[in-house]
């Protein structure tokens, strides 16, 4: 085992951003199968149109998984104490997920220091899709 070097958790520190390739139907199909979420809105264009949508669109939890990757690439997963996400926009086909985050505050949680991190996912046009917050153990 190699020693894990923790990144800076100072207030204002930014997470290394994660950019994901444009959302394709193939990704939606694979995510549906892999996640067990077979809701037809995400994989069946006919069903999506019946619901008044122009086409299939991304699972909120697929965007959530990318934000999870943003965190686990930054700190060891054991340090993630909580993750909260608000799905604020539909992730349409060919949207490219840009995941970013920043430490905004140090707090105390169960008697231990933790960093409150704001995280965001927006598409290549800057339109917000997911806004959220994670709490990361400092020590």
């Amino acid at each position, binding site marked *: 085992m190699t020693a894990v070097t923790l990144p800076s958790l100072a207030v204002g520190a930014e997470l290394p951003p994660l950019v994901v390739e444009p959302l394709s139907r193939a990704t939606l199909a*694979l995510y549906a*199968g892999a996640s*067990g979420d077979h*809701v*037809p809105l995400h994989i069946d264009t006919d069903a999506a149109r019946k619901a008044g949508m122009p086409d299939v669109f991304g699972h*909120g*939890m697929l965007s959530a*998984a990318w934000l*999870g990757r943003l965190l686990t690439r930054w700190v060891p997963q054991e340090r993630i104490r909580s993750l909260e996400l608000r799905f604020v926009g539909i992730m349409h086909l060919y949207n490219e997920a840009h995941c970013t985050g920043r430490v905004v505050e140090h707090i105390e949680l169960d008697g231990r220091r933790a960093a409150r991190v704001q995280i965001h996912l927006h598409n290549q046009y800057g339109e917000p899709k997911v806004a959220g917050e994670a709490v990361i153990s400092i020590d």
Partner: protein
Amino acid sequence: MISREHIGRHRRATRQVELGQLRFFLSAIGEKEAAFAALAPGQRLQVPPTYLFCLEMIDDPDPLDWLTGMGVNLLHILHGQQRFDYHAPAWSGDTLEFDMCIEDIQEKKGGAMQFILKKTEVRNQHGALVATLSSTVIYRDPAHQGKGGKA
């Protein structure tokens, strides 16, 4: 309109964290290195942060029957919010118990939308609390369409 009588209802499920399915998930979300990592005998993969949500739906013939059972049309739902509170890691090979409860059903915009709040506690085979999941599902009641209730 969903009846508030469903508040307090539980749904319980037991799930095996299968290594192959977990690799498939990691690959689908683009985490290719972990997805195709060679594992030594006895080595396990850690369940990534959002996969607990998926495990509740995987290997279930009707994972959303708690919604359809309330009369919800799945074409008119949106996932509004999701929260995870983590207490202990979960690994491939674990057996996890999911205890879901409908916490609240709230009416918005004069009934044009309803918010369904559910909470799921996840425990492992040793009885340890792994995580608590809190979800808000938004239901745009099609019966209200055309009444000016734009979501």
